[in-house]
């Protein structure tokens, strides 16, 4: 079958010969591993751990390809990161494709290939999957769902739960914020905006593993995806009933993101990231952890951005560069560009 010149037809999802070919020539070719190749209805997984972490995420991004990645890479990073920030070692993924009739197989292969590449980088196996094809117009080109399983050590089981957070604790992020959201927006067809912004889309499990292995004092971790850093910090403030203070001058924001946000009236704190982790640790441990993070390629630009405080419980306050203070709320609705 010449995959490059063909388009997905309804028959590719009907369980017959064409679907079989698609699985053989595309999915198995790129995802192949001993568990998947069994082609059983359910994957049988060897695990040895006190806890399992289990998560799922669906990807409906528009456009499918954007600077720094595509929906395939994103589908791995998103699920791997959800496992990693929960303290798990990600091991197995399921991948389901919902494909619109007429979708070019060549593009599908590019996506499948980068999905496989990212899974290899993250060290996870794709062990089960599904393909459905829907009539033209019934979905927007391609949707992907991934679910992931990871193992959790006893000592890591609480890292996502924000227990024992105290005033004085320090908030660290592993690099610049807002890159993913702005890269995707600038890639939209209707958006005549030339920029060099690239998505930060990356699997963080290796970085997070080195942090957990070398620092015993991680009190909270979360990946600030949709809703951005502001949303995670607000959730944390609400959960702990403590206040959070962020220093605007310490926030790592790239020049491109900063300029684009300025033009469109967005706040980088509200823009999505796909390769960032927010961590809370004690003040005494903060420099040690910061150095561990900086020594990993995905943490080179790590920075301390704020502190947990007793003032303004439940609220996140930004200390602005000009000396003022303002509340950082969760995002309301979609970020909308302003008109004047």
């Amino acid at each position: 079958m010449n995959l490059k010149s063909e388009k997905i037809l309804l028959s590719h999802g009907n369980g017959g010969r064409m679907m079989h070919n698609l699985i053989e020539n595309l999915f198995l070719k790129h995802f192949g591993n001993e568990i998947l190749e069994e082609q059983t209805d359910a994957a049988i997984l060897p695990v040895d751990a006190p806890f399992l972490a289990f998560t799922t995420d669906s990807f409906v991004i528009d456009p499918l390809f954007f600077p720094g990645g595509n929906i395939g890479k994103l589908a791995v990073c998103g699920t791997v990161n959800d496992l990693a920030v929960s303290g798990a070692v990600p091991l197995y993924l399921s991948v389901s494709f919902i494909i619109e009739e007429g979708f070019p197989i060549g593009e599908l292969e590019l996506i499948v290939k980068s999905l496989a590449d990212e899974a290899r980088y993250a060290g996870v196996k794709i062990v089960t999957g599904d393909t459905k094809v829907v009539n033209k117009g019934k979905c927007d080109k391609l949707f992907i769902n991934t679910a992931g399983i990871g193992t959790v050590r006893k000592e890591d089981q609480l890292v996502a739960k924000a227990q024992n957070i105290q005033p004085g604790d320090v908030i660290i992020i592993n690099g610049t914020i807002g890159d993913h959201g702005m890269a995707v927006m600038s890639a939209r067809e209707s958006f005549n905006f030339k920029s060099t912004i690239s998505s930060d889309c990356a699997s963080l499990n290796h970085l997070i593993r080195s942090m957990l292995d070398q620092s015993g004092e991680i009190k909270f971790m979360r990946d600030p995806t949709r809703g951005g850093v502001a949303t995670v910090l607000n959730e944390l403030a609400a959960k702990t009933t403590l206040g959070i203070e962020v220093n605007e001058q310490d926030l790592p924001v790239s020049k491109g993101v900063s300029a684009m946000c300025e033009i469109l009236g967005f706040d980088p704190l509200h823009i999505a990231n796909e390769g960032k982790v927010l961590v809370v640790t004690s003040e005494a441990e903060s420099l040690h952890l910061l150095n561990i993070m900086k020594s990993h390629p995905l943490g080179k630009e790590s920075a301390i951005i704020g502190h947990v405080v007793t003032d303004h419980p439940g609220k996140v306050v930004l200390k602005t560069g000009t000396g003022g203070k303002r509340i950082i709320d969760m995002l309301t609705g979609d970020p909308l560009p302003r008109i004047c």
Partner: protein
Amino acid sequence: MQYIDEYRKKDLILAVSEEIKRSSKKEITLMEVCGGHTMAIHRFGLHSLLPANIHLLSGPGCPVCVSGQHFIDTAIAYSKIPGAIITTYGDLIRVPGSATSLEKEKANGADIRIIYSVLEVLEIAKNNPANPVFFLGIGFETTSPATAAAIIRAKKEGIDNFFVLSAHKIMPPVMKALVIEGVKIDGFIAPGHVSAITGTSIYNELAGKHGLGVVVSGFEPVDMMQSILMLVRQFEASAPKVEIQYKRIVHPEGNLIARGLLAQAFELQDDTWRGLGVIPSSGLKITKEFSEYDAGTKYPLNVPVPPDPKGCICGSVLRGLKTPNDCKLFATACTPSDPVGACMVSGEGTCATYYKYRS
């Protein structure tokens, strides 16, 4: 960011703040007309850098806020025309009409698209020749020249399915109306980007006849503080005049090309402003030459004007008579995620700004 960071330097802001405190003796009330200025004042916490005798009032400079529910109701009525595609800047999508919003109608199946530039709308029209494509033209002189350019281009290219629902307004008449109505103002922080198009002669009457200082200001904290200092100095010396602080953008004669486009495609009409009623010659109507692009001419619809939502004081806020904190609904029944009045929904609305930067 070059040309931005320089205008956000803390030591410079503090130096101007000190100079304002030294120069300002009398009680003075200044109105920032533009929503962008309201945003900057709150975003950078400029209130805390001014002495207590300087009062800042927010004006009617948020285009979404002053157009209000009736415009949204009308846009929704147009979305029900068979095959209609409604295009709009993002600001309008969540503004509540009297019964529903564009966002809700989109979810109900109306074809409503957010665009970033009105020229995109021409592409949409070309790609959908069988559908009437409506553009919700809103905004002051900052957005109206682009609408004018699109109308002129549509005619040149023979596009016949592009229609503008114009709620475009101009700034000077409303500034004058506030003064005549007796809102206590000693000077205007005048809109920077509007003035970049119009030039500054439009303010001469305010300074000459009404004795008010007018300083055209940029949007960064140093700009705003310097403009306030200039107005304070004028006021203390009893020497009101029109000055430009935002010299890197604004020229006294304005942008002649943009003004030319406006003059070609639009003419003045009496227009309704939320909270202020009808102000003579304050709105822009498409000229006869281009009337085939006027949604109202091509598809005349009569949508009733809804009453203001109960308890909402947007009208008084827009006139600078009250602040959002005076409103019973503010931050309780009316929040950005569930707005009652238009001032809460637009990112540059006074209520949304007060809400976002409340402390």
